[in-house]
């Protein structure tokens, strides 16, 4: 029997006795904002994607052609031609700049909005958002496809605010999230577990309670066909699947759309392999499919699909990376780490449409207009999702930690309601 989301909520909402679920049952208080992060792991070249420099020398502009976007005067590289047609619906930040040029440190800064510290493990934006908006019953509030970046996790926040990693490759035929289908004996095992709990009746530590709540969540997720179906790409028509592309990034984006539509608050889609120190042109334009082709198809379809379904005002999508890449091609035809300039593309939610924020110099080396730090971007995203600058978390050692870096700015010009 298939249960609709509404029916599932009714049925499973009637079991508040399950430890740890009372809070989750308060999902009704959550707003309806969602966030999808497309994380290009390794450092996406800004020059070869969203901030091409066609007027620069060949050693900088690279071999890729450029294409006009739907926003006058703004160009992308040619492989992103479908995305270019949607630029008038997006918000492009071209002046991201960071002092962190190392993968780990750069990712930490971008994903947590704070520079790394040996004293505090900062939570990622996904966990911060998840802490504000509880997921539905049995449904994790934060999902990573296929698995989260190390710094995309909960940091010092409670474990249940960390991402649920789907694992696997959604682009492969027959992809299923592992172990979501109930084992034939799982009912009997859970029944034995309940009986043992009564027999042993020992006080449980916080770690054990956390573990118990995850087990309950696993139990609900497997018992609830609605949740299982959300993770099942087979529920989509072949036309829709085809439109996103039969590749990892495309099907990951489709899964992300299914999840936010079903109630998941944050989805991190992590695409690896963007660290192109050697022959970047080939790395971006060859392959099955080429990196940029996959990105173009997946993201443009995601935008169109969200719009078709009327989710564009509820869902914020951001395409980002830990840093940009060196404007000048190195002797191996690659580009190295470059944190002084990079770009991020944002769509939907509370962000203004058809806007380019900031600008890099003629060679794409430095922002020359309205520089934006990762902390600024992080704070602006949180503000767009309804969080205020004064919000604080309490770390495990009892210290109040501001959610947003106190030195950061909220970029009001990017936001609809604050502009």
């Amino acid at each position: 029997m298939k249960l609709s989301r509404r029916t599932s909520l009714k049925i499973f909402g009637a079991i508040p006795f399950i430890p740890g679920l009372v809070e989750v049952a308060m999902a009704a208080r959550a707003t309806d904002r969602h966030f999808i992060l497309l994380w290009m792991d390794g450092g996406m070249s800004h020059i070869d994607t969203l901030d091409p420099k066609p007027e620069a020398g060949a050693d900088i502009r690279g071999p890729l052609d450029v294409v006009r976007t739907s926003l006058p005067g703004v160009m992308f590289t040619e492989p992103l031609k479908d995305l270019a047609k949607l630029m008038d619906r997006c918000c492009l930040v071209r002046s991201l700049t960071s002092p962190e040029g190392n993968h780990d440190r750069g990712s930490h800064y971008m994903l947590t909005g704070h520079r790394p510290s040996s004293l505090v493990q900062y939570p990622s934006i996904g966990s911060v958002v998840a802490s504000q908006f509880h997921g539905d019953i049995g449904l994790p509030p934060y999902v990573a496809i296929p698995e989260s970046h190390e710094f995309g996790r909960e940091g010092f926040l409670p474990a249940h605010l960390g991402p649920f990693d789907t694992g696997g490759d959604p682009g492969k035929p027959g992809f299923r999230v592992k172990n979501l289908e109930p084992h034939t004996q799982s009912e009997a095992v859970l029944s034995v577990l309940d009986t043992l709990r009564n027999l042993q009746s020992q006080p449980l530590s916080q770690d054990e309670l956390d573990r118990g709540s995850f087990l309950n969540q696993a139990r609900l997720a497997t018992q609830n066909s609605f949740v299982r179906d959300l993770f099942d790409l087979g529920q989509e028509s072949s036309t829709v699947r085809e439109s996103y592309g039969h590749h990892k990034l495309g099907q990951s984006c489709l899964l992300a759309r299914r999840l936010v539509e079903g109630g998941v608050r944050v989805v991190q889609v992590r695409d690896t392999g963007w660290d192109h120190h050697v022959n970047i042109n080939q790395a971006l334009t060859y392959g099955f499919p080429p990196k940029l082709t996959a990105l173009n198809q997946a993201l443009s379809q995601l935008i169109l699909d969200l719009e078709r379904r009327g989710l564009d005002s509820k869902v914020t999508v951001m395409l980002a990376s830990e840093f940009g890449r060196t404007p000048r091609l190195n002797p191996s035809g690659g580009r190295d780490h470059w944190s002084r300039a990079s770009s991020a593309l944002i769509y939907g939610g509370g962000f203004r449409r058809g806007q380019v924020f900031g600008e890099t110099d003629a060679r794409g080396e430095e922002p020359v207009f309205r520089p934006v730090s990762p902390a600024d971007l992080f704070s602006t995203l949180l503000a767009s999702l309804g969080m205020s600058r004064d919000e604080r978390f309490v770390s495990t050692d009892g210290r109040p930690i501001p959610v947003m870096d106190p030195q950061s700015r909220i970029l009001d010009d990017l936001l609809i309601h604050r502009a």
Partner: protein
Amino acid sequence: MKFSPRQLIWILAGLLSPGVLGNDPSEPPGREWDFKVDILPALVRSGCSSAECHGSATGRGGFRLSLFGSDPQADYESIVQESFGRRMDRRHPELSLILLKPTRSVPHEGGHILSESSPVYQTLKQWIADGAPWIHGPPSQFLRLEMIQNPDLSLQLNGYFQRGTDVVQQDLTSRAHFRSTDESVVSVHADHRLSFHGPGEAYVIGQFLGWTHRIHLINSHGELSSETGTVPALGAHESPDPLSRIWRQSLQDVGLEIPQTAEPWRVIRRLFLSVAGRPPWPNELDHLDSLVHQGQSMESLLDEAFGMASQSISFQKKWGQWLSDWLELPGDPQDKKAGDPALQRSLDEVLSGNQSMMDLIRRIVDPQSSRHLRQRYADPRDRAEFVSRAFLGIQLGCARCHNHPDDRWTQINHLRFSACFSNAALNTELSPIAFSSQPQPDGGMQEKSGDFLYLPGSGYAVKPALLPLQQFMDTESSAVSLVDWIQSSARSTISRNLSNRIFKELIGVALVEPVDDHRLSNPARYESILSVLSQWMMDGDFNLKMIIRQLVMSEPFRIAALNPDELDASRREVAFDYIQLRKPQLLDVDQWVLAVSGVLGVELPPFEVATSPLAHQLALLNSSWFDRALEVPGNQFEVLNKFATDVDRIQRTQELHRMVFSQPLSEINARKLLEAAIQARPGDDIMTSLKAVLRGMVLSPEFCSIR
């Protein structure tokens, strides 16, 4: 009329001069003042300089103070000089913003902080009336603190200062911060009065800026009854170790009876889990069972169990991992290719009991013996922080950014200790003369190469200095190598830190939490026990196995293994609550697989590693791993069902329970368990139901934790 900029400055200066603002220089202040001692602590205590208030990085409402008064000079300037001195009205002190705001005579976002009758308000007002001096009179040099508990249970904190040639005593009570380490025993009210609650012992800590004084308080549970008026005598065959004796004495001090210890099977299970990271295997249980039937004492039984647990591969694995985590060694400790082979050999020697942990520490600190420290951390400050937290139990990292008034270690302590780990210092004795006292051309930037550390803003190379661990110890003047210092001056500090860490690993809760915070203001839960362990550690030349054995053989370990359900008498429950030493530790995936492998008596296929907790629980619940485990030939489940066909299903359930939990199960409860499985899936055959029972058992909190 127009004024030139120069004229304007003169006019403004005239307007803002003390005479105009009300302070007549001809009238000297009525008393001696020292802003750092008399004013700053009052602001800290009132919460004005907390992170939520004006101590935040950007301040509040345009007024910024340093966090918890860590920068007195900056705070003085903020209060007295900033914004043209608008926070002060020396002619009418009561109209000063610094008083109007906290009394909420004008709007104040932080609410009502002070009343006009409070001592802090009066002090501030008088200080302003006296001209708000930075210092008036001879400068104060702090000598010591003294806390007194008065007969009416009020506390008084006195400070002794050197002012000129005099030693001056000041009552600092109203400016000090008091707290109890255990509110269930004793609490401190806002009026500095003590309230005693439940029985036990606690420290009351008085803090005045960076200085701390503490008193130890015991709240007895009451007189013991005549039958139990003294500590129960031990049997002739029992000779408790010093740890147990001290434990008994502390129980007597708080008027509690000796609580019962856990059942032998539970202590043994806990011992195996704590020492070897796995439950006892069926053959080991059979052997110990036979010793019980021979009438062996509990001590002999535990000794035998410890011998078996510590000789097993699991011991090497568990404590090898513990050592690796502690030392932040890269990779799998069993992988000889990873990291430093010589260090790995040294680690193996420690595990086999042939080498002391102090040798291991010395090897790491000595740049001639190991490159670990330099490989692990490129920055000398990171090296210093690692050594301080891992070996000394000192949280030095906080002082990296700024001084904390509640912390003993300052930013300069941090920098100078870090300089000991710079590449230049590692090859020399730590004598200041080895370092240049000339400013460096880069203006004081801290060099990344680690060759030298420079004092920020000055450009002078930082003179390396070891941490003054003991009061009055002057380590700056003597040239001593880092290795010598570790082995001599730091020996007792290391011993205390290591004892605490091992205690936590075995018992589940540390005596000092956090484990790397052995400040005076963070006393041990049971200081006497930590002292004994620490002394044992030094007497036993830092032998890991020896200290583990001493701990698991002690009475506190046997009490800590108790299940609260086993307690019945109310007085015993109080004693058990007083101990509060147990905290279940979850087994990690490898430990859990090892434990299941022990239950089934066969080597099992690897369990899929999930990167998120929900994915892990889904794998435990729904994966086919357990089915495959039960297909491994010769496993105990198969043996039980193949050769015990004459045994009925209830008895087989009881046997499964013994295999998994090392303890018997009543027939009634065995029936309940089996019925739970059968009722959930009525169509299954008995073997399938028994599999579900076994699977449920190994997923239970009892099995998945070291309890």
